[in-house]
């Protein structure tokens, strides 16, 4: 493989936006043909990318909403469903208004520019690059696919401070966070002129941009906002674990769009990403379950579901880069590490990350991001990148992780403080006692 490959895999959901061919592919193929072969749009790719965007929506609403919602108490169920769904909707609007432009248009190493606000200039004739030369997809589907990432990422964060956040604060924070954290980090990692992309860091489908990014923000939020009333004293058990399983299942199903869609076309690498998204996930689910069985005496369904999500997180950056056996190993490691973190380390540290967003997305994301540098090794069955040396790649991966952690950690902290001053982050203890559903939304989840 040539040098381009490093860039290629470093830009899974890539810089395509930057390189849009405005040439109408059907109308004037000759003009484009002179310098290079006419770009081709394959309907199989178009179908795959539409399917992938739809699958990522499935992950979010109802997937993530249910995964989270099942874990809170019944009196806060609707507040969680509402926060996830509202943030997803608002982010879709923000994305087409200025998010897409900031993440994928021109700009510098840190952020894009405003040349495509309101999707200026994008028509059905606009094309976006894929990772294969000459293979293009309609820009609209690239925008839609990337939109779903921008929609789910801020929604992931709210799990860190579920059951006590003010609804308006959650939504405002999400928009600010997307603007000052997600769009810049997405640009740094995925745009061809982005800082981290330039280092040659590998992130197939968004391990840093989505998972570490949101996991760390959730941790900061959990600490800034403080523990739930009754934490450590009352029983705060999940009110409906079957909902959580439905959510975990839909997350898994939808994650194929997330991971394999990130290849932007439907080729053999995409199928490898699909296979890895099966086996790494299965391995992590089994690993968490067995760890729990051995250390606590019983394997729990919540443990299995948690391991499944941890595995999905961990394989994300490596989805099309690892071989299936590497993916299994990555899944096993993520399952065990996230289990230990969520059950022991977290309790030792004593913060209240209600739904373990950091323990699963943050920690799993870090395992995956660093592990990607290892399992990509051809010697281990990975697909390899040019000039690969394990040590060097791992160092690059760690650098990317650290930049992400610092950026999201610091900026999130500032944004939480700003929102606290402007709106107030937390409901009153009485409201928390009564439940957010009634207090914030005037409705109850269940009647008989």
């Amino acid at each position, binding site marked *: 493989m040539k040098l381009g490959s490093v860039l290629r895999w470093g830009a899974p959901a890539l810089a395509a936006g930057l390189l849009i061919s405005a040439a109408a592919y059907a109308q004037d193929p000759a003009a484009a043909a002179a310098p290079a072969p006419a770009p081709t749009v394959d309907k199989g790719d178009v179908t795959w990318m539409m399917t992938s965007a739809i699958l990522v929506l499935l992950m979010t609403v109802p997937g993530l909403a249910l995964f989270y919602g099942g874990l809170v108490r019944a009196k806060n169920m609707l507040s969680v469903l509402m926060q996830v769904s509202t943030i997803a909707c608002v982010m879709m609007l923000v994305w087409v208004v200025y998010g897409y432009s900031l993440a994928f248009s021109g700009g510098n190493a840190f952020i894009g520019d405003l040349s495509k606000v309101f999707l200026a200039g994008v028509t059905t004739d606009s094309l976006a690059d894929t990772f294969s030369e000459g293979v293009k997809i309609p820009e609209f589907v690239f925008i839609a696919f990337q939109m779903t990432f921008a929609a789910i990422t801020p929604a992931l964060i709210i799990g860190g401070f579920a059951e006590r956040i003010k609804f308006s604060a959650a939504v405002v924070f999400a928009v600010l966070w997307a603007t000052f954290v997600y769009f810049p980090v997405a640009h740094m990692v995925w745009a061809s002129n982005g800082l981290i992309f330039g280092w040659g860091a590998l992130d197939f489908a968004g391990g840093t941009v989505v998972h570490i990014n949101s996991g760390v923000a959730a941790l900061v939020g959990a600490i800034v906002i403080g523990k739930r009333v009754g934490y450590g004293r009352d029983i705060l058990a*999940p009110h409906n674990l079957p909902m959580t399983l439905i959510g975990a299942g839909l997350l898994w199903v939808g994650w194929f769009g997330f991971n394999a869609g990130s290849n932007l076309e439907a080729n053999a690498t995409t199928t490898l990403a699909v296979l890895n998204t099966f086996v790494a996930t299965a391995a992590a689910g089994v690993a968490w379950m067995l760890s729990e069985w051995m250390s606590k005496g019983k394997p*729990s369904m919540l443990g299995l579901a948690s391991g499944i999500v941890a595995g999905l997180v961990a394989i994300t950056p490596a989805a099309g880069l690892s071989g299936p056996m590497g993916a299994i190993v990555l899944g096993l490691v993520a399952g065990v590490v996230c289990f230990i973190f969520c059950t022991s380390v977290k309790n030792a540290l004593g913060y209240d990350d209600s739904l373990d967003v950091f323990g699963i997305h943050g920690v799993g994301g870090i395992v995956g991001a660093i592990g990607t540098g290892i399992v990509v090794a051809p010697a281990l069955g990975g697909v390899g990148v040019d000039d690969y040396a394990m040590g060097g790649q791992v160092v690059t991966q760690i650098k990317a992780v650290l930049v992400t952690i610092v950026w999201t950690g610091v900026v999130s902290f500032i944004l939480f403080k700003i929102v606290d001053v402007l709106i107030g982050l937390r409901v009153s203890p009485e409201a928390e006692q009564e439940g957010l559903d009634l207090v914030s939304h005037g409705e109850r989840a269940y009647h008989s």
Partner: protein
Amino acid sequence: MKLVMAIIKPFKLDEVRDALTGIGVHGLTVTEVKGYGRQKGHTEIYRGAEYAVSFLPKLKIEVAVAAASVDKVVEAIAAAAKTGQIGDGKIFVYAIEQALRIRTGETDVDAL
């Protein structure tokens, strides 16, 4: 008239009901309750959080009977509800002063 209130293990309901109908009691009211007592509960674990749950599901049975039948009723319930294991429950008896069947307006023992 007396009201016999029994706290029993949930899976004993059908046996208790059969025992009561067997001695001619044809009405009773059942409530799902949670009991706390000598029977120990269980531990539930949800990720890192472990909860000791000491309240156990029980059923409360209330039967209004003529004073003369109380002993028979208490014995029937006790026999049917007994497993011999801890947590089998209790029976309490107290006096009721009036009873009324809403449909007919019948009162006292006629109302039962």
